[in-house]
């Protein structure tokens, strides 16, 4: 979906910085949002500080919407991983190169 968004607005977003958390994706307010997501999901003590940075940069409404997306995906990843659904074949084919390059396929080997 991020690639689709990039195609629409003519931006070549980079996945590397999102996967490794170092940034450089090209998405606006990336640093504040990634730090907020990480702090919320791993229950970091800096969550309040990170929340404040999102409010300062984007406003309270954006912080609430970001919190909703983070929470929704914290849940739906459990639905996907707890049910054993595979990635649809066309999606798997279309994303094979960059999933392998970014190390996402390595997640399969960690299952037990």
């Amino acid at each position, binding site marked *: *979906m*991020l690639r*689709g*968004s990039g*195609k*629409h*607005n003519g*931006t070549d*977003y980079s*996945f590397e910085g*999102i*996967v490794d*958390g170092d940034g450089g*994706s090209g*998405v*606006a*307010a*990336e640093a504040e*949002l990634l730090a907020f*997501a*990480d702090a*919320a*999901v791993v*229950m970091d003590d800096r*969550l309040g500080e990170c*929340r404040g940075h999102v409010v300062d940069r*984007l406003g309270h409404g*954006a*912080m*609430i*919407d*970001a*919190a*909703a*997306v*983070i*929470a*929704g*995906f*914290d*849940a*739906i*990843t*459990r*639905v*996907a*991983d*707890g*049910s*054993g*659904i*595979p*990635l*649809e074949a066309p999606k798997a084919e279309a994303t094979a190169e960059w999933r392998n390059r970014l190390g996402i*396929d390595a*997640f*399969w080997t*960690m*299952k*037990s």
Partner: protein
Amino acid sequence: MAALDTAWRGIGAPGVWLTGAERVMIVEEARAARACELCHARKAALSPAAVEGRHSAITGLPQASVEAVHRIVTDPGRLSEAWYRRVIAMGISDEAYVELLSVVAITTAVDTFDRAAGSARRAMPVPREGEPSRRRPRGAKPGLGWMPMLAPEDVASDDPPLYESGGRIGGNVHRALSLVPEAMMQFWDMFETMYLPQEAMRDFGREYRAIDHAQIEMLAARVAVQNQCVY
């Protein structure tokens, strides 16, 4: 957020395979799992299956349910079909597991949202009296995931309309909870308000939230990485 309130209250109602009291105990156990020593040890281990012990359970749920709740909460990225088969062999049905999974997912969504937004953790849902309806969709078939699932083309006229709102196209993630259509609908009715309905996801010419499509997808991708989710 009204959808979260609705989903939270709904946990207390009798489900399809679980009573309201059992569903509320799943919430209690999901919250307690993060402090479970066995879960911490397994999370740190190269192979979670190699670490034996007992969970720090705080409810009267059966061991199969406790194991399922704790692992889904604390180490979802390393769940496997072999693990699922072991849990089922411990004495929980496919249907009850799917309903449990939906309750854990709703609990995760609500608690993560409240924590992220700076709100206090909300009080437990109130369990309500009543018996589970115990109705399994006749068209559910094995083959896609670990348990049978109900494809859109196999939905019967007396099944709940699980694919009829939000532009649900029947993608694999839509089908994940479909063995218990009511559980699937409770989760997706909530999730679509937190993320985007299907038709809005690819409507890149219009923004539906105070953050844009790219920011939404970046957050989604980052959370998936944190949870080691391949899907």
